[in-house]
Structures are given as C-alpha cells and as structure tokens.
C-alpha cells in the first residue's frame, strides 16, 4: 500500500495482523487492494480474505502504480474487486477521499466514483474517510442519496482542538445531510495517541450562538459516532448499558429543539428534499443522472447497520 511513497509501504500487514491477534477484543484487521494488479490481485485477495477473515478494506484511489496516477472505484477492474469483496463478505469498504497533497493528483480524491459504486453494490458499506474534505458538499450530496455511504471523521476530527467552531460546522453539516447512524469517529492513531480526541468529543457541544443553524449534539449521537456505528457495521458486541435505546431518535428528534429550525431542514421543506425531488447534482452536466433509487429520504430509512441490533462489546478497528 502506497508503495511509491514509503520504503516499506504505508500499511504493515504482518505487524498489524499480529497485533489484532494479540488483542482480538480490541482490534480488527482491515486489508487493502489495488485493482490495477488485475487477475493476480484477485487471486491474492481471495487467499487474504481466507487467512485474515476480512470484514473490511481501506482503499487509496490516489495511489500511484507504474505510470498510473490513481484509479476510480467505478473502473471495470475496481468492479471486479468489489464483486469479489461482496462475495467474500468483505462488506466495509473504507475509501480515502481527503485533502490532496503533492504529488497526489487532485482528481483522484473526487468522490463521484463512490456514488456509482455505492449504487451498484448496495450490500457493501462505503465509508468515505476524511468525508471528502475539502469537497464536503459533494460528499454530503452523495451520502444523502446513497444509504450505504458513511462518513469517516479522520482528519476532520482534530479540528475540534484547533478550530472547535469549524468542527461544529462540519459535524452540523454531516448530521443534517446524513444522519447520526452513518458518521464514524476516526482517531488518526498513526499521528498520535487519540485519547484526548475522544475526551474532547465527549465534552463537545455546538456553541450556543451557532445553535440557530445547527441543533445541539446529543449524548446518544455522540455514542453512536464514537463507537456504536462502527460496532454495528462490524458486528462487534456492545457492553450492556452502552447501547442506545432501540427506538433510535432519528435526525427528526435531533432537530426538535425549541424555537429552532428556520435555517434547518424543518417541516417546511423536510419532505420535499432528496431523493425523489432532488435536482441534478451540481457537478453533473447533461441528462442521465438517476435520483430514483430509493423512494424515501435516507434519514427516514434506518440503515441495515443500525446500532439497535448491535450485540454487546465494542472495539475500534485498525488498518
């Protein structure tokens, strides 16, 4: 993984896998693949899935490979790999879509390919790491349409320290466009020991003077974001007492704050938004876009990975 940029690659498969075996109650090993290895890589993926008992993978579409400066999730070979992932039960596809740094190509981080793949592989979950920043709006637009698209908060999370008011905007936008069941905490653990980040988020609240734009964040929403959503996605048991009530308060409840709502999705227009009445995506030119896949807004439609079905112990994921 990222072999063009690191002497030993960015992911240390053997070390990471060994660590998960030492701490099976805390860690899950996620793998990676590169569709540009074509048939050979597919064979390898089959063997790896068997050896590692894979449930998830992390993909870097901006990765270089020979003369290639990146690939798209909707490339024909990408689809072959996603088909195999679906067949092998590797359900959780984490995709790195975040800030561009030289020499990576800007276009490799475009999120439009997630849209197509998510539609064509409804059994897979697509977790967009870094939630597309700085193309948050493109990501949000897609995630509103596609119930199997999730937000990973890596790199967005630490704004809570340096720019807490900006973090409030990001989390406010995500809670508006997605819902609380499809947002996942990420630690960026490769950069630091993330305890401080978790504690900051537990204590976090939308600043009072911003609450006319964004509803206050609830304890249950925080629980879901910090662990229950990932636990549900990976089938990790949740400790007794840590669950949230089965009748999960959806986004509607999160907006029920008194005297608010003029600037938020409210009764005035809550039912006329996506996807049935959705206008074409802002970046889409020409006809042929489909907006009819699901007939109800995704936020009324509890995701199949809803935390309510989660059993009883939780662990973060690695890889």
């Amino acid at each position, binding site marked *: 993984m990222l072999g063009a940029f690191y002497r030993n690659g960015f992911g240390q498969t053997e070390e990471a896998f060994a660590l998960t075996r030492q701490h099976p109650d805390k860690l899950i090993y996620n793998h990676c693949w590169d569709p540009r290895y074509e048939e050979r890589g597919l064979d390898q993926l089959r063997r790896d899935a068997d050896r590692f008992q894979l449930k998830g993978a992390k993909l870097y579409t901006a990765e270089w490979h020979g003369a290639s400066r990146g690939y798209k999730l909707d490339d024909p070979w990408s689809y072959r790999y996603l088909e195999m992932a679906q067949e092998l039960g590797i359900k959780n596809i984490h995709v790195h879509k975040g800030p561009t740094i030289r*020499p990576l190509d800007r276009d490799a981080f475009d999120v439009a390919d997630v849209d197509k793949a998510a539609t064509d592989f409804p059994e897979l979950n697509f977790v967009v790491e870094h939630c597309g*920043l700085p193309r948050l*709006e493109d990501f949000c637009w897609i995630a509103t349409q596609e119930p199997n698209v999730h937000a990973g908060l890596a790199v967005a999370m630490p704004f809570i320290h340096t*720019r807490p*008011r900006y973090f409030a*905007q990001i989390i406010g*936008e995500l809670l508006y466009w997605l819902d609380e069941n499809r947002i996942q905490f990420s630690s960026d653990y490769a950069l630091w020991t993330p305890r401080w980040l978790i504690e900051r988020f537990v204590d976090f609240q939308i600043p009072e003077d911003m609450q006319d734009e964004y509803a206050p964040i609830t304890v249950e929403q925080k629980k879901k974001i910090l662990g229950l959503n990932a636990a549900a996605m990976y089938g990790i048991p949740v400790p007794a007492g840590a669950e949230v009530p089965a009748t999960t308060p959806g986004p509607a409840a999160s907006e029920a704050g008194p005297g608010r709502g003029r600037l938020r999705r409210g009764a*005035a227009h809550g039912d006329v938004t996506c996807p049935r*009445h*959705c206008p074409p995506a802002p970046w889409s030119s020409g006809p042929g876009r489909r907006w009819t896949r699901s007939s109800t807004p995704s936020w009324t439609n509890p995701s199949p990975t809803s935390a309510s079905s989660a059993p009883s112990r939780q662990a973060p994921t690695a890889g």
Partner: protein
Amino acid sequence: MASDAKDVLAALPDAGPVTVLLDDHHDSDLINRGLAADAGYRGTFGAEAEEGLEELRLVFRRKAHAAAMERALTALLRQDPALTEERLHDVVLGDLLDTAATRALLRRRAALGLGTAFSEPVLVDDGGRPFPPDEIPLRLRFARAVRVSIDGNAHFCRGLLRTRYPESAADQSPRATDPRPGTLPKEKAS
C-alpha cells in the same frame, strides 16, 4: 497561486514591474523561475502537470460565489425574522444589506460574468439562473455546505501557516466561524 498574486499586483493602478518570490517552499526555485518567466502552471511544472489551472480556477470562483451568496442571504434571514427561506426566491441584489458580505457577493458575481444590477435575483446557480421556488431551501442548504467545505481549505492552510510562522497569526482576518459580535463562545466552558 503565486502567479495569481503577481497578476493582481500587476493590475493595480500605477504598478511598475512586479516581482513575486515564493520563499521557504520545497519547490521555491522551480516556481520562482516559472514566475520570472511568466511560464504559467504547465510551463513551470512541465510533465508533472497534465492540464492548466483554468478549470480549477473556475471551480473556485463558482464555489466562492455560492459561499458569498449563502452568507449574504443568511445575514438577511437573521436580520428579518419575518422572511422565510421560501421567499428568498424573490430577493434581488437591491434587497441585500450594504455589508462586506454583499460587496463580496458582487465581486464574486462579476468574476463569474453574472450581472450586478439591483434587480438581479440573488439565489442563482453558477450560470446566474434562479432556482425553482420548491428547491430554494435545499439549494440554500447546499450553498452553505459549499461555504463550510471551502472554508476548510482556509482553516487547514492558516493552521499550517501559523504552526510554521507563528507571527503570521496577526495577519489573518477573522473567519465566518469566529464568534459573532456580542456573543460569547461556550465551547471552552466544558
């Protein structure tokens, strides 16, 4: 960006010859040679650049317009509690308050080639076309997401700049997320 800075400086009234130098960057020498020769992005980076920056500049101009539009309209909504989002369809440039946000919107419109007359509708797409009334709340909401998203770039870059050059903090103008005058941020209270 460096050549954009040079263009802006050169366009100032009475500007003489303009020299822009990029200091302390891993590609300083390469970029400074390109700047001196007015070589443009492709001329500077050669094989590393697959295309010029015009398309990217247009993307930024469109996003800047959407963000400025949302700022101006949200300010109007705050100022006039009787105004509903649905009625933003009828708001024209002449209805906006004379504020920095409005003046920024006019500049962004001009940069995109959109009209700036008082009678022009405010809530429009990248081509200046008004949205159907039933799409207004969603479009305003999307413009806000654009604004928040593009502001992320500024936060990233300002943070990096301050880390490397602490004295740069004094030069940074407030962001839209800074507390509004007369309000107290509460996030520190926890």
